[in-house]
């Protein structure tokens, strides 16, 4: 396995090993480009994962201090846990559910499609769906997405069957077990799904695609990729010309190290990536790196989310089987007659007893709450995920007071729902409840959003440098050898799960970086 020198300034250094960083690292390594991934978390392998929600949370979740503000309920209930994402090699691809959908064409052009919307900072992406389609194809093939490349869909579990039956009664048409990056049959050296039911806790069978089980080992096998776990990057450095020269990080033994680089790609998730750019401020870049637009950290997106649980007379056992292999797509269209811009998906979800207690209605107690808990085996559940409107004031800033154990200011996450988000959520709650009522639900529970699993938009791509942080390849407008490779690139968030788009952009970005390196442009 490769091991590169700290003073090797020919390397591409990637911060983060998730969907963006892990994919970019493998793609570059396959092209013969020497690459180091610095991952803040430890290396937990498939055999280390546990089918236990809290124990797994302690093993995998990013629990370093963050602060919150804004009108979203997460700021009240989970003031220091705005996001449920992973600090471990593989990043949040260890935890993700596997739903792999392409954005709709109009979702790349929301300013043109939705027009003006008070309080929203709408902008078209500098790329179109047609431009991204070839890269989506590569990503679907790489990840083994069901219902693409001739791969059959996953079988539906009990939770799906309930949702499907209700959806059909309501007349919904596009209802199936999803496009999932989970093997429905053996493929790419990995087995098929065993219906374990702990997708969020790291897949114990290896059927689910993650950078941990797929991209990273493949990249390492080339001899061109080194992954350094327990390496927390504090700062990106630059020279007098303004080009970045490397990163400062703290290693597993608590020692500060300086890794030189020819190119730096930031892929630390949409909360940590802007934090790192802001924490790297210097006399030349007093507002942080790549921030001449003032947009670093702004337009934070987390999707319009929520859940609906339905309680029935007879058992469902929703926790058995693939957590999110079930989708209704009929509402994922742009139809302003419903009273809001954009659309939403309904996807199956389940939590175990420990997380159901913590997240069903945070802070609630007494018999109303415990009656719901006692109905657990008779519950079916769906997650609502829709496009939230970008707002400049929804943003990641550096907390003026709180610092991490290395003395760096922590990220502060501010989020207010836009009225469009609220209108969409109300509609989704009504439809979700109607689906379950159509097949006999006695009670439905419109459940508040969980801490964010989809974090996007804080270093948005833009045609013009004044409107955003990145060009259409994720290269910063301001510094040509500095890239961003995670979901923070998103100009807008679309209605669907972000991972497939992050992976597609990373494959495309690898091509761009390789070409530019070859022409000695970077």
């Amino acid at each position, binding site marked *: 396995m490769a091991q590169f020198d700290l003073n090797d300034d020919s390397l591409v250094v990637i911060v983060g090993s998730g969907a963006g960083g892990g994919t970019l690292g493998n793609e570059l390594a396959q092209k013969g480009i020497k690459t180091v991934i610095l991952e803040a978390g430890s290396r937990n392998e498939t055999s280390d994962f546990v089918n236990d929600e809290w124990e797994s949370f302690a093993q995998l979740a990013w629990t370093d201090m963050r602060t919150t503000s804004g009108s979203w309920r997460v700021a009240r209930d989970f003031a220091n846990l705005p996001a449920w994402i992973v600090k471990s090699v593989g990043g949040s691809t260890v935890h993700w559910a596997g739903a792999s959908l392409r954005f709709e064409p109009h979702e790349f052009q929301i300013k043109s499609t939705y027009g003006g919307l008070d309080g929203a900072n709408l902008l078209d992406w500098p790329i179109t769906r047609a431009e991204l389609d070839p890269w989506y194809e590569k990503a679907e093939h790489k990840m083994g997405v069901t219902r693409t490349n001739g791969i059959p869909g996953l079988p539906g579990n009990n939770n799906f069957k309930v949702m499907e039956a209700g959806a059909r009664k309501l007349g919904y048409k596009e209802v199936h077990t999803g496009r999932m990056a989970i093997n429905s049959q053996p493929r790419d050296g990995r087995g098929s799904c*065993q219906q374990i039911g702990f997708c969020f806790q790291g897949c114990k069978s290896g059927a689910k695609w993650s950078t941990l089980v797929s991209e990273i080992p493949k990249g390492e096998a080339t001899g061109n990729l080194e992954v350094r776990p327990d390496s927390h990057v504090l700062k990106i450095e630059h020279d007098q010309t303004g080009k970045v020269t490397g990163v400062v990080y703290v290693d597993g033994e608590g020692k500060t190290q300086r890794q030189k680089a020819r190119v730096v790609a930031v892929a630390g998730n949409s909360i940590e990536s802007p934090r790192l750019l802001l924490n790297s401020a210097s006399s030349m870049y007093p507002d942080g790196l790549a921030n001449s637009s003032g947009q670093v950290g702004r337009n934070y997106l987390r999707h319009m989310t929520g859940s609906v649980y339905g309680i029935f007379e007879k*058992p469902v056992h929703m926790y058995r089987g693939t957590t999110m292999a079930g989708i209704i797509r009929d509402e994922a269209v742009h139809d302003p007659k419903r009273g809001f811009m954009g659309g939403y998906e309904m996807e199956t979800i389940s939590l175990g007893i420990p997380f159901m207690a913590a997240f069903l209605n945070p802070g609630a107690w007494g018999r109303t709450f*415990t009656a719901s808990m006692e109905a657990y085996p008779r519950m079916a559940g769906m997650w609502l995920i829709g496009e939230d409107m970008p707002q400049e004031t929804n943003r990641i800033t550096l907390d003026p007071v709180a610092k991490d154990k290395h003395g760096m200011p922590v990220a502060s996450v501010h989020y207010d729902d836009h009225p469009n988000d609220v209108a969409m959520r109300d509609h989704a709650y009504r439809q979700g409840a109607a689906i379950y009522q159509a097949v*006999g639900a006695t009670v439905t529970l419109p459940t508040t959003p969980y801490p964010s699993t989809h974090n996007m938009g804080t270093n948005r791509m833009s045609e013009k440098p004044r409107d955003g942080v990145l060009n259409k390849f994720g290269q910063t407008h301001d510094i040509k050898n500095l890239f961003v490779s995670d979901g923070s690139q998103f100009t807008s968030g679309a209605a669907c799960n972000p991972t497939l788009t992050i992976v597609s952009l990373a494959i495309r970005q690898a091509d761009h970086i390789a070409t530019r390196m070859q022409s000695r442009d970077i």
Partner: protein
Amino acid sequence: MRVIDPRSRYSRRTFLKGAASAAPAAAIAAGTGLSITDAWAEDGQALTAPQLKTLVKMARDVYPHDFIGDVYYITAIKPWDKKAAGDAAVKAMLVDGVKRLDSDAHDRFKTTYVDVPWEVDRVTLLQGIEHTDFFGKIRADLVVSLYNQHELWPKFGYEGSSAEYGGYINRGFNDIDWLPKV
């Protein structure tokens, strides 16, 4: 459909055979019918027996599940005694919290909190302290320390870890049999 047997996996017989040393404390006690009175006949490390009993009663009133014995609430509350022994501020918070509950109980019902006979009346007292740090901390801890007891999960129809049994692919992931045909 394959349904879950809600009974405890640990029988009284297992306990008497002495094999129970390997079984979780709550499971042992559940199998033997341990109650609040038996568990805390004597004082804890930092808290008195009446204080501990009040906290356990409060725990049941916060998350009332009539099909589970006191032992699970005791297991959930017990760590507070140790925390209080190691931290004077925690001890003060708990002692003052219990004192406040009892004082409110005396004002309204002329007795201590644990002796207020109806749950609905005790809940009124809890609503009166819902905004306090004491209530907030007890509840936030309890939502984990109660519902994360593995021995409780079968009673809620939850099977826990499944990978070691090969997942649910042959154990009922799609065995629902009552849905209307569409």
